[in-house]
């Protein structure tokens, strides 16, 4: 184990996988010479050279399309979209091509490709640069969607993504890049896709969260423990497929659930998870499920009002208290 940041853990995952497999290459806007707008690709050009670390034009749809073609041709592209917001320009290649090709061509080809996308709100970047679009990707079959909360998971999940033979959307939270944690040094350390992780065991309430929401949920749980409420924090890690078994097992144990999502509430992933809890655990629930979500508005710039548009540890704490007291 060694302590490192989320950014460095991602960087290490990229380096290890590029050393391990010469068919892995990295492409994206400003990833080579500039070493990435969040510096996740630092040192890659120096170590792996121009043919494996490629700056691209500002052509998001074509970045993904070229990755699709390269994957079809036998390579393992790891594309970086500068931020998830720009993935909207690439939705045609992501949804209409990447996610369809294996199925619609009758399984005659597969696409071992990963798309990394930094995202999330909370940095006063305004309406066009603060979005949480995870639900957009989860909705469409044909691609995995991963979103780590810790440096260790960041490393283990990215390595699993790169080794996977099918398309992976790999989301990274911009506010987590500097967060630190213990990371296994073993170059064979992999986090399996499709498994949630109980980041804190507890008895009274299950908090289902992911990425930065997990960090906030853990802060809330810490505070609540002092107040005598024991929370179990289930970190999804993998949004598609959802680890329904782990979510339901925890809710069956505690009998109560709070679901936290950074994205907009309407049709957000919290709605999907809540529905699955009701469908499967209705009989044992001690109180209705509560959701904590991003507000259904474009993100305002001003720090003081941006704050209220996003879940906070305080709103999570309040939701847990509501669930405990039966106040809705």
């Amino acid at each position, binding site marked *: 184990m060694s302590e490192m940041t989320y950014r460095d853990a991602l960087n290490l995952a990229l380096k290890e996988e590029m050393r391990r497999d010469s068919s892995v*290459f990295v492409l994206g806007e400003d990833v080579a010479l500039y070493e990435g707008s969040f510096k996740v690709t630092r040192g890659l050009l120096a170590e792996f050279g121009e*043919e494996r670390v*490629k700056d*691209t*034009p500002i*052509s998001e*749809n*074509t970045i*993904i*399309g*070229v*990755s*699709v*073609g*390269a*994957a*079809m*041709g*036998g*390579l393992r*592209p790891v594309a970086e979209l500068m931020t998830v917001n720009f993935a909207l320009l690439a939705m*045609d*290649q992501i949804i*209409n*091509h990447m996610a369809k*090709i*294996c*199925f*619609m*061509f*009758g*399984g*005659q*080809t597969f696409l071992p490709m990963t798309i990394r996308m930094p995202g999330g709100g909370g940095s006063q970047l305004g309406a066009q640069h603060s979005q949480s679009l995870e639900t957009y990707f989860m909705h469409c*079959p*044909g*691609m*995995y969607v991963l979103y780590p909360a810790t440096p260790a998971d960041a490393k283990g999940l990215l390595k699993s993504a790169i080794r996977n033979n*099918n398309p992976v959307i790999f989301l990274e939270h911009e506010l987590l890049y500097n967060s630190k944690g213990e990371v296994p040094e073993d170059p064979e350390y992999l986090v399996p896709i*499709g498994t949630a992780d109980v980041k804190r065991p507890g008895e009274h309430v299950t908090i289902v969260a992911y990425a930065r929401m997990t960090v906030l949920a853990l802060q809330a749980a810490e505070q609540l423990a002092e107040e005598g409420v024991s929370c179990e924090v289930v970190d999804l890690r993998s949004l*598609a*497929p959802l680890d329904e078994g782990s979510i339901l097992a925890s809710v069956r144990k505690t009998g109560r659930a709070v679901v936290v999502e950074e994205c907009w509430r309407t049709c957000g992933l919290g709605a999907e998870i809540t529905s699955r809890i009701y469908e499967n655990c209705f009989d044992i629930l001690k109180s209705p499920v509560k959701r904590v979500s991003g507000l259904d508005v474009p993100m305002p710039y001003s720090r003081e009002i941006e704050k209220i548009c996003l879940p906070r540890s305080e709103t999570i704490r309040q939701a847990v208290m509501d669930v405990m007291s039966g106040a809705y």
Partner: protein
Amino acid sequence: MEVRLRTIAPDQELLKFYEQMYISREFEERCAEQYTKGHITGFLHLYSGQEAVSVGATAGLHRDDYILSAYREHAQAIVRGAEPRRVMAELFGKATGICKGKGGSMHLFDPSLNFMGGYAIVGGQFPIAVGLAFSARYRSEDRIAACFFGDGAVNQGTFHESLNWAQLWQLPVLFICENNFYGIGTEVHRSSALASIHKRTCGYDIPSEKVDGMDVMAVYRAVKYAAEKVRESGHPYFIEATTYRFRGHSMADPAKYRSAAEHEMWKARDPLPNYARRLIEEGIATREVLEAIEARCQTTVDEAVKFAEESPWPDDSAVWEDIYV
């Protein structure tokens, strides 16, 4: 003065061109019939009239070269070597189809033939072709990517993004525009500021040329030359082949937007009878030889229809196959 055919290719090759064009036409006309009978459903875009482009171009490529196309691609798959019966079965939606009935008319694919797909989002194939060309160079493979598309596709962002990218990264992509002068019902002058499509590559400094897409030998020579250029230099190249579709955009389109005079003008340039006449005039084939070829094609297509009819539907379980999440 037309160049004499024998100076371009051996007799056997010249006859093969006729056979490929003929089976393409026959296949498409039988598709129309099967659509009318309700055996083929959904969208059906026929290639009749454009055969010289696919046949000439495919002959100008190597077997290892990738081919990508749009949704008007039955003939392109067959000319590349796909079995007509498996293509027909795909159109019928049967389990024996080239994509197990999961693709349909617009999504033919066969990696064993390096036929890397029919795509139904206009302009979707451009970046994928660029990516395949990149993989070929990365893996030091001796192959290029040939990307077919229509005149309508050149106004998509991916067209410009991909031309720029292919030239910037110096990738072996041969762009082949099949300019049939219409994108559904919109004539090219109503959609493109610069309707002379091959000139558009100036902005990316990609060499380009225009060729008569109703003349199989002209297409063959142009593509053979261009493909070798691309192979040797590793740089992209662009061909615009002017052609015409004799039918509507799809089976749903009666093509009322085109005048009878225009249609007649192009009909007179039908690549099949014109090429047949040249074969006879230059003493390469007799009428009887050509009739034997035609009969053979008809039998193949008859058998394809029969095979498709008799093939089983996919199992319901197929919907959960070839998908991972």
